[in-house]
């Protein structure tokens, strides 16, 4: 009985808070902003000596999925993508100039549509690995589309594309697995986030 009352109180509280953006309250947007910032800053300062294409997906997709896994509402991925994209532009990351925004935004957008298909079960290793791999591949797709827009010859864009796609999928999946483990451990400690 007491639990029911608590739930009702929580629902009334959340309806009072209102929606700030998409289906997110202000606190959710702030949390998503934090994850977006972590992605951009990590990408800027971290240099892993892996010398393989797409290795940044290891932490990039990992953090993105942790954010989505802890803020289980539509719009959290988009918010993380927008924030990290804007920061990437401001910090002058990448060689694409202003277009680098889309490299950060599209994986977030994709995750927002992809995760509901898997019923928001990002704590499951299989689901998180698949989501991470697909988000990482979307980043690669954005790279190629940007190359086409910037008139880079198609041969140079697609040279080693198969290998690059495999590396992106692999690192994205590993990032997803790490995210699933972290979500599983963090979730019970963040029960007041909902």
């Amino acid at each position, binding site marked *: 009985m007491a639990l029911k009352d608590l739930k009702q109180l929580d629902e009334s509280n959340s309806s009072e808070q209102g929606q700030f953006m998409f289906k997110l309250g202000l606190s959710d947007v702030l949390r998503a902003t934090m994850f977006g910032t972590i992605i951009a800053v990590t990408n800027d300062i971290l240099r892993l000596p892996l010398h393989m294409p797409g290795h940044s997906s290891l932490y990039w997709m990992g953090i993105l999925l942790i954010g989505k896994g802890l803020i289980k509402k539509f719009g959290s991925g988009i918010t993380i993508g927008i924030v990290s994209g804007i920061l990437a532009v401001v910090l002058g990351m990448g060689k694409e100039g202003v277009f680098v925004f889309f490299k950060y935004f599209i994986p977030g957008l994709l995750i927002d549509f992809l995760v509901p*298909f898997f*019923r928001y079960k990002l704590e499951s290793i299989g*689901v998180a690995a*698949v989501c991470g791999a*697909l988000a990482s*591949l979307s980043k690669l797709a954005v790279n190629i589309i940007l190359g086409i827009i910037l008139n880079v*010859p198609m*041969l140079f864009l697609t040279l080693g*594309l198969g290998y*690059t796609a495999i590396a992106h999928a692999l690192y994205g999946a590993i990032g997803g697995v790490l995210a699933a483990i972290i979500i599983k451990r963090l979730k019970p400690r963040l029960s007041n986030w909902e």
Partner: protein
Amino acid sequence: MKDKKRVIIGIILVFIIIGSACLIESITTKQGLGSAKIVKITEKGKVAAYISTDILKQLVKQDVDEDDLSFGPPLQLAMHAAGVSEFTKVEVKGEDESHIILNKKDISDDLIIYLAGNGTMNLCRKENSSNFLIKEIKEIIISN
């Protein structure tokens, strides 16, 4: 639908995307090399670099005198740009299967890659740029 099925669908999707990437790569490589607008530079049987007219135009702007802009970069400069510095022989192959073998002493700044307006590259001598030694270069093979 069970969660396992959804994950399997996701995995299949990942494999389809990777397969498509491999397919696109092989198609564009064939098309790009077939058009003679991209030249393959091979060294010890391995591809050292791919060069296009755009890249060579940049090279001309950076390294060649303004007077030489109408021609194209020297063959030697294009090879240096591809990371080739030591060689004994160079074979230049054309799209029409014609080829020329050049020894180290034959290669000088006089031998240039003429950049045609249609994006193809031709081998000629600077003083006789209308007479192509190799028309529409397809491949440059370096021998050590």
